[in-house]
């Protein structure tokens, strides 16, 4: 964190953007990843470079560790301690290229720029090669830490909900202060996602998805928060919400979105009603989703760039395999829990046997064995929690993220479709003009010519947008893959380290038992 504290990012432009609807693509939305701004601190590199971000994936799940000593599960409802929130839960700041002096500012902005400032054509934005893209990715870092803690049940009965504390620590000037926190509920997180999806997905960004809704889980919580499955549900959701936010703030474009800022900063958020399943907005969404699906089916995209096709296939395969793996890991978690249970029961039985035993030394040894098995049960429980909260959740996250990625590819296909539709409309207009020419109606002809010009511009715009999205998608995919590799590595290492410690403790327990067994006479 120290590394970036002396950098001051440029002040965020005052123009707030209203929600951008799907039809507004032609308004010249700013592009992600373009260096449009002219802050003197920016190091110019000739042709403007796409903005690059590459951070270490946030230290996921570290909150659990500090809140509980032995078992993750015991990270109960009220047990988080405030002081250490950010000790580990931060977006790590480091650059992959040490000694790089060219610290670029995060300079993307979201929202409609006046079309005039948007002078450069997409073509000039393209990096000369994919390798250059990758290199440039390695230079940036952000200075925002978020944590989600202190789940608290508010209210009673079926209207109850859980409020989480969302704390931010930052040195970015675009925020009002350096550390602050707000209380948010799950539907707020979901609302943020919906807003971002609507705005950002048009540009080809991969929007991290939050954890799914769960009627069953929430009902249990509403009824009472004390049983272990409720505690587990709340903890799982809390950790998933934290990772969700961390992914959002570590994405350079998303961080600039005013909705994100509002989410982190504003005291009271209006209730996100569009997330309610049966509301009017909900129905509208369902219909849109359905029509999109149909749309996709009728126009098959004629792919000029096989990269996209190959990648899409890869993503689909990977998602399938991850689901398979998730199922097996779930089975592992269950078997591990069973082992806990059967070990505990066995330990009790062994203790009883030890009591019955009339040979004193053997009786003692059997009692000791019962104690060792009790300790083993504890180890198995911790291992099961680790299997679940680290391994299984990692897989769940990436299954969701791959889904988001597929959505991103879909956006590109839609951009292509719009372009094609514009082209066919232009064609029709031209045909109409030709007819008018032949029929010799000069006044209508003028109008026709104007329309043709208009549509020609539209076609060009759509083509540019399509190329631009293509580029963004490519960039996003690369960024995502890098993040994923880092994320997997850090999580798997964490998982294995936990397993290692568990086995080391196992050795100690049995080594302590051995002399007892040898003492039997």
């Amino acid at each position, binding site marked *: 964190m120290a590394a970036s504290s002396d950098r001051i990012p440029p002040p965020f432009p005052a123009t707030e953007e209203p929600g951008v609807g799907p039809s507004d693509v032609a308004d010249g939305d700013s592009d992600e990843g373009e260096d449009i701004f002219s802050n003197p601190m920016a190091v110019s590199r000739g042709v403007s470079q796409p903005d690059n971000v590459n951070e270490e994936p946030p230290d996921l799940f570290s909150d659990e560790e500090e809140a509980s000593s032995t078992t993750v599960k015991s990270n109960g409802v009220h047990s988080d301690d405030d002081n250490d929130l950010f000790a580990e839960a931060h977006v790590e700041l480091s650059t992959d290229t040490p000694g790089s002096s060219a610290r670029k500012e995060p300079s993307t902005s979201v929202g409609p720029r006046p079309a005039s400032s948007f002078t450069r054509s997409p073509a000039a934005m393209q990096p000369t090669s994919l390798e250059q893209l990758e290199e440039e990715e390695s230079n940036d870092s952000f200075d925002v830490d978020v944590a989600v803690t202190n789940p608290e049940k508010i209210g009673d009965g079926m209207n109850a909900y859980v409020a989480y504390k969302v704390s931010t620590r930052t040195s970015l000037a675009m925020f009002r202060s350096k550390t602050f926190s707000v209380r948010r509920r799950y539907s707020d997180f979901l609302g943020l996602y919906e807003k971002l999806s609507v705005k950002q997905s048009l540009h080809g960004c991969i929007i991290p998805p939050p954890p799914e809704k769960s009627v069953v889980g929430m009902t249990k919580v509403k009824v009472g928060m004390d049983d272990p499955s409720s505690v587990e549900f709340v903890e799982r959701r809390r950790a998933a919400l934290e990772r969700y936010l961390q992914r959002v703030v570590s994405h350079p474009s998303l961080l600039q979105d005013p909705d994100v800022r509002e989410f982190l900063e504003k005291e009271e958020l209006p209730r996100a009603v569009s997330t309610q399943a049966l509301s009017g907005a909900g129905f509208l969404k369902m219909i849109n989703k359905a029509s999109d699906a149909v749309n996709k089916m009728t126009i098959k995209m004629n792919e000029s760039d096989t990269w996209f096709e190959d990648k899409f296939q890869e993503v689909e395969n990977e998602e399938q395999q991850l689901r398979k*793996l998730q199922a097996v890991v779930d089975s592992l978690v269950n078997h591990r829990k*069973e082992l806990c249970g059967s070990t505990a029961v*066995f330990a009790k039985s062994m203790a009883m046997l030890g009591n019955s035993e*009339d040979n004193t030394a053997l009786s003692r040894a059997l009692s000791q064995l019962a104690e060792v098995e009790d300790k083993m049960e504890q180890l198995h429980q911790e291992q099961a929690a680790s299997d679940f909260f680290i391994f299984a959740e990692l897989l769940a996250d990436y299954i969701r993220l791959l889904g988001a990625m597929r959505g991103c590819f879909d956006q590109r296909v839609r951009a292509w479709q719009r372009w094609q539709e514009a082209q066919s409309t232009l064609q029709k207009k031209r045909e109409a003009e030709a007819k008018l020419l032949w029929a010799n109606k000069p006044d209508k002809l003028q109008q026709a010519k104007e329309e043709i010009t208009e549509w020609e511009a539209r076609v060009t715009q759509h083509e540019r947008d399509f190329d631009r999205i293509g580029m963004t998608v490519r960039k996003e995919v690369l960024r995502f893959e*890098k993040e994923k590799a880092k994320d*997997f590595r850090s999580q798997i290492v964490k998982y294995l380290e936990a*397993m290692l410690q568990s086995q080391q403790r196992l050795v100690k327990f049995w080594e302590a038992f051995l002399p007892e067994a040898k003492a039997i006479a």
Partner: protein
Amino acid sequence: MTSTIDESNKEKMRSVSVDLNHDASLLIDIPDALCERDKVKFTVHTKTTLSSFQKPDFSVPRQHEDFIWLHDTLVETEDYAGLIIPPAPPKPDFESPREKMHKLGEGEATMTKEEYTKMKQELEAEYLAVFKKTVQVHEVFLQRLSSHPNLSKDRNFQIFLEYDQDLTVRRKNAKEMFGGFFKNMVKSADEVLISGIKEVDDFFEQEKTFLLDYYSKIKDSTAKAEKMTRSHKNIADDYIHISATLNSLSADDSTANKKLLEKLSDLFEKLRKVEGRVASDQELKLTELLRYYMRDIQAAKDLLYRRARALVDYENSNKALDKARLKSKDVPQAEEHQQQCLQKFDKLSESGKKELTSFKGRRVVAFRKNLIEMAELEIKHAKNNVSLLQGCIDLLKSI
């Protein structure tokens, strides 16, 4: 499927009983066994210096039912009423691996070829383990007989070892003669009788209390230990699937994640082998130990029962004598009968005491040996896991 057990494996297997087969005058082992569908054919091999046998070195084929016949005839023999008859070996039970094999066959389509092969290997290993265990258990039964001063001289035992024809005919005759009557009686009435009797001897009073209580506890522990071992096996199986899926992911991956997935897949493959061994060692050292001594304690309880019955007989004969004296009729017969009962009871008590004391010692020694071995194996496997995990972690950190 034919399976052969070699010497080194036999040594390892002889785990639950101790001090057997050291007397060179009569050495018995089961060097070979064949498994045909459900039936297991054991080759019982005897080496002896005793003149009571026709040859010094010979082998015969025997089935499980032959062992049961031998056990039952020994139990029914009056002369051995004061001895703990070694428990009969349990019937070979391949139900569990067979069922799993069936399930595997049904699920074949959902797995990769590699995964299926690995699962099949695991099951074959499990099948082999069950097989080895049943051979061991039958062998130990015979060895306990051969090392017992009285039982080793039993005529039926000799027939069992030597008779080179099929024992089936003999088995049928025996069943007709005894009808398994005594055995059935023992099973149903023993608790009531043993606990109901007024004990005259402190030693037996204590033994009775202890054995009844211990039996129920050890039976419970055996069942719980079995469940624990099954859970371990399930986890080992899960590791196979995890390893296989990671392998598929790695094969299709073109990003930086590829190597990580590959290494992780290797690790899980190795971990599952260790986990499998943890499960089977626990089974052998702990579960088998408990199971064996549960059966042995049942045999000790049977001894107590027989003695209790002899006491009842003696008391009844006393009453009969009193009645005869009252009626002055058939007094000498009654007296003789009473004497016989008394003698029988005393003989049972004396030999019973000896048997129970040596049983205690045997049990403690066996527990000690197995608990030590189990602890050592647990440590070994955990250390193995530690080094595997550390190796993988170092590898992943360097990717």
